[in-house]
C-alpha cells in the first residue's frame, strides 16, 4: 500500500511537468504578445520592456528560467498588472474559488447520494421518477443555461436571493447559494444516477440476500451493507467531477461576478498575460492532480478486492 502511494505520488511529477511545458509553449508560440497595443510602441521602449521581462532571450532559456522559478514557488511578475506579482493575485482569488468549489462538491455528493439511494430503494415509485427526472435535467441542461435561468428566477423575479456579489465583499452569506447550487447541479445528476444503478446492483447481490435472510432490519442492510458496497463507482467518478467543477467555476464566476480564479483566468487569456495564464493553469492542475491522487487512494482503501504491490 505504501509502495503504491509512493509510486502514485512520483507519477504526479511528469504530469505536472507536461502541463507546465504545454501551457508555457502554447501561450508563447501564438502570434501577438502582451504588450501589443493599438498604438505601436517605439522600438526602444519595446526592447526595454522585453528585456525587463526576459522576453528577448531564446525561448529555451526563458523556459529554463521559468521552470527554476516555479520550482522555488515563484510564478513570476504579471505582465499586465504592474502592482503585484502572479502569486499575490492567485492567493487573493484562490480562497474564493476553493470555498465555492468545496461547497458545490459537498452539495452534489450529499444530495446526489441520498436521492440516488432513495430512488433505488423506492424503485419505480414517484420518488424514483422525480429524482431521475431531476438527474436527466442536470445532465442535459448545460451549466451556462442553468446559471442565468436560476439567477433570473430566484434573484430577479422572486427576489429571494442576491443576483451577484460575494460574501467577502460584505454582500451577505446568501450570495454563495445560487452559484454553489448551479455548480453542483451537473455532478449531483451524475452521482444520483450512478448511486441508483450501483445500489440496485448491490441490493440484488448474494450477501444482501443473506443479510435479509438472517432477519436484519432493512435500514441497517441499506446503510451498513449495501451503501459501502455501492460507493465504489461514485468514488471513481469524483476525479472527473473535480475537473468539471473547475471548468464550471469559470462560467459560474463570470455570471455571478465572483472574484475567483476562474474569472481571472478568462481575463488573463484575453490579455495574453503569459505568466498569469500559466500560473493559474499550474494552480488548477496541482489541485486536480492532488484530488485525483486522493480519490485513487480512497478507492483502493474502499475496495478490498484490489491489491497493490
Amino acid at each position, binding site marked *: 500500500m505504501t509502495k503504491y502511494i509512493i509510486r502514485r505520488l512520483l507519477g504526479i511529477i511528469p504530469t505536472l511537468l*507536461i502541463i507546465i511545458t504545454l501551457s508555457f509553449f*502554447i501561450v508563447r508560440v501564438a502570434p501577438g504578445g502582451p504588450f501589443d497595443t493599438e498604438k505601436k510602441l517605439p522600438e526602444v521602449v519595446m526592447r526595454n520592456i522585453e528585456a525587463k521581462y526576459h522576453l528577448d532571450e531564446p525561448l529555451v532559456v526563458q523556459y529554463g528560467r521559468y521552470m527554476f522559478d516555479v520550482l522555488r514557488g515563484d510564478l513570476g511578475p504579471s505582465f499586465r498588472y504592474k502592482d503585484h506579482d502572479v502569486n499575490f493575485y492567485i492567493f487573493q482569488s484562490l480562497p474564493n474559488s476553493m470555498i465555492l468549489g468545496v461547497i458545490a462538491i459537498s452539495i452534489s455528493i450529499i444530495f446526489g447520494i441520498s436521492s440516488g439511494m432513495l430512488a433505488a430503494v423506492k424503485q419505480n415509485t414517484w420518488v424514483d421518477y422525480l429524482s431521475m427526472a431531476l438527474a*436527466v435535467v442536470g445532465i442535459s441542461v448545460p451549466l*451556462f*443555461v442553468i446559471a442565468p435561468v436560476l439567477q433570473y428566477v430566484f434573484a430577479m423575479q422572486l427576489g429571494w436571493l442576491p443576483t451577484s456579489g460575494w460574501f467577502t465583499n460584505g454582500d451577505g452569506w446568501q450570495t454563495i447559494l445560487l452559484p454553489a447550487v448551479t455548480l453542483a447541479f451537473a455532478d449531483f445528476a451524475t452521482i444520483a444516477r450512478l448511486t441508483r444503478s450501483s445500489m440496485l446492483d448491490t441490493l440484488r447481490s448474494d450477501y444482501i440476500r443473506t443479510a435479509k435472510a438472517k432477519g436484519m432490519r432493512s435500514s441497517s442492510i441499506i446503510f451498513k451493507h449495501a451503501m459501502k458496497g455501492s460507493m465504489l463507482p461514485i468514488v471513481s467518478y469524483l476525479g472527473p467531477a473535480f475537473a468539471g467543477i473547475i*471548468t464550471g467555476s469559470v462560467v459560474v464566476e463570470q*455570471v455571478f461576478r465572483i472574484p475567483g480564479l476562474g474569472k481571472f483566468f478568462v481575463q488573463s487569456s484575453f490579455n495574453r498575460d503569459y505568466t498569469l495564464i500559466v500560473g*493559474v493553469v499550474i494552480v488548477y492542475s496541482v489541485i486536480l492532480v492532488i484530488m485525483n491522487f486522493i480519490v485513487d487512494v480512497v478507492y483502493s482503501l474502499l475496495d478490498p478486492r484490489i491489491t497493490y504491490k
Partner: protein
Amino acid sequence: MLNHKNGKTKQEKATNEFNQIVVGNSLSKDAWRRLRKNKMAVISVILVSIYILLAVTAPILPIYPYDEIVIDHQDLPPSLTKTAGELMRDKELAKMYAQAWRQGRLVVDEATNEMLEDWVSRSKVNKVWDYLLPEGNRQLESGTFTWNASEQRSIDSREKRIANEIQISIEKMWLKDEQGKLSDVKHLETDEIVALYAKLLGVQANLLVDQYTYEIEMQLLKKIKAESTGLTDDEYNMMLRDQLDSMSTKNYDALVKENIYEKIASTIKDMAMEQLGTEASQAETTYPLNEKVAVTEYLTASVKATKMHDRRYYLGTDSLGRDMLSRIIYGGQVSIAIGFIGTLTSVLIGVVLGSLAGYLGGKIDYFIMRVVDIMYGLPYMLLVIIAMAIFGRNILNLFFALAIISWLTISRMVRGQIMSLKNQEFVEAARSMGASTPRIIFKHLVPNSLSVIIVFSTLRIPSFIMTESFLSFLGLGVQAPYASWGSLVGESVGGMTLYPWRLFFPAIVMTVFLFAMNFLGDGLRDAFDPQSKNQL
C-alpha cells in the same frame, strides 16, 4: 476468396427440420426492434430529425436572413399577432408615458405611484412600461392626459415612417428597344451594358472606364491581400499586374459587366424607391408588392417591395434588430454541424488509434495508451480556453481544439473491444487466409464493435455541442456575424432583466435538443446492450 464470393450470390433460404423457413436475426435488427418499443427514444428521433431538417433547409425557409438588420427593430418582444411597426409604436409610447409620469403630467393614484416607484428602485423598468402603456392609452382616450406639441410631432413622424418605409429588392431588369422588345440586362454585351449605365446617368460612356477599371483593380487587390499576408505594397501591386496581364479579355469583360450590373441595380433600386415613396403611389399600391415596374422609358425591372415595419418577429429581436427566430435556426445550424462533424472526427481518430493499439499490442499499444493516460490527466478545458483566446476565435480553431481532445475515451473503448475480439476464430480464419492487418482491423474487427461505437457517438454529440456552446458563451467560440446556441445565450445574459426572451428561447431550443440526444443515446445503449440498463 473467389469461392466465398460465389457462395454469397447464390444464397438459399435456411429451413429447420420441420421445413419452416428460418429468418436470421442480427444484433442490429434486434436492437432496432427494442429501440422502437422505447417511446422516449422514438420521440427523440423525431425531434432530432426536425432539428436537422430545419438546420439544413434554413436558407430556403421563409425567415429573415440572419445578417439582415433593421436597426429600428431593436429589442422587440416576441409576438404572434403584432407587426414590428405596432411593437415599435408600443415600445416608444410606453417610454414616453413613463417620461410623462416622471414629469408628473401622467397622474396615477397614490397606491399605484408607490408600486411604480418600488419597481423603479428595483430596476424593473420593463414592468413600469408594461403597466403605463394601457394606463396611458386609457387616460389619453378619456382626455385626462394629452401629449405636448413636441411629443405629438415625434409621434406623428414615427407613424408616418411606420406607414411608409419600404424595403426594395430588384430581382431582374429588362431593356426595351425601339420596337418595344424586352431583353434581359444580364445577357447584354459588356459595351451595351456600359452604354446603358452611361445613358442612365446621362454621361459619356468613356468617362466610366476610368472608374470601373479602378474599382476592379481594388477588388482584385483586396482578394490578393486576403489570400497572402505579410507582403509589401510593391509586391502586392506586382501580383495584381501579373493577374491582370494573364487574365483573358473575356474574364475581364465579365468582371466589368458584373460591376456595372450591380451599379445599375442599385440606381434602379433608388429610383423605384423614389417612385413608390410618393404620396400618390402610397395610396394605391398594396404590399407586399411583386411586379414589373417601368422605371424609365427604356428600362423595366421586376421589383419586390415590402413594408419594412410589416415584418413579424415571432420570437422577438436582439439588440441589433435581428430576428431571434432566424438567429436560433442559423445558430442551431452551426451548433449541430459542429456537434456532428466534431463527433465524426473524434470517433475516426479514436477508432483508428484504439483499434491499432488493441490489435497490434506491444510497444505501440503501450505508447498510445500512455499518451491517452497523460492527456486524461490534463485540465484540457483550460488548455482549450487558452488556445482559443490566443490563437484566434474562429470555427476552424474551435473545431480543431475540440477534436484533438475528444478521441481519448472512444479509443480506450475500441481498444478494449478489439482486444476481446482479436483472439476469436473468425479473426484467426481471416488471418490464416492471408488477410492483411488493415483488412482484419477495418473489415472484421471494427464492424463487430460498431454497436459500442454508435452508442458512444450518439452520447458524444450533446457533450460536443455543450463544450462548443460553453466556449461560445465565454466569447471564445463562434464569432459574429455567425451565432451558435451558446453565443446566443451568452449575449443575452447581460440584458436578461429587460429582455428575458433573448435568454429563454435559445436556452429552451438548445435544451430540448440536448434532451432528445441524451434520450436517444440512452435508448440506443439499452437497445444494443439490454443488460447495462441505466448505467452511465
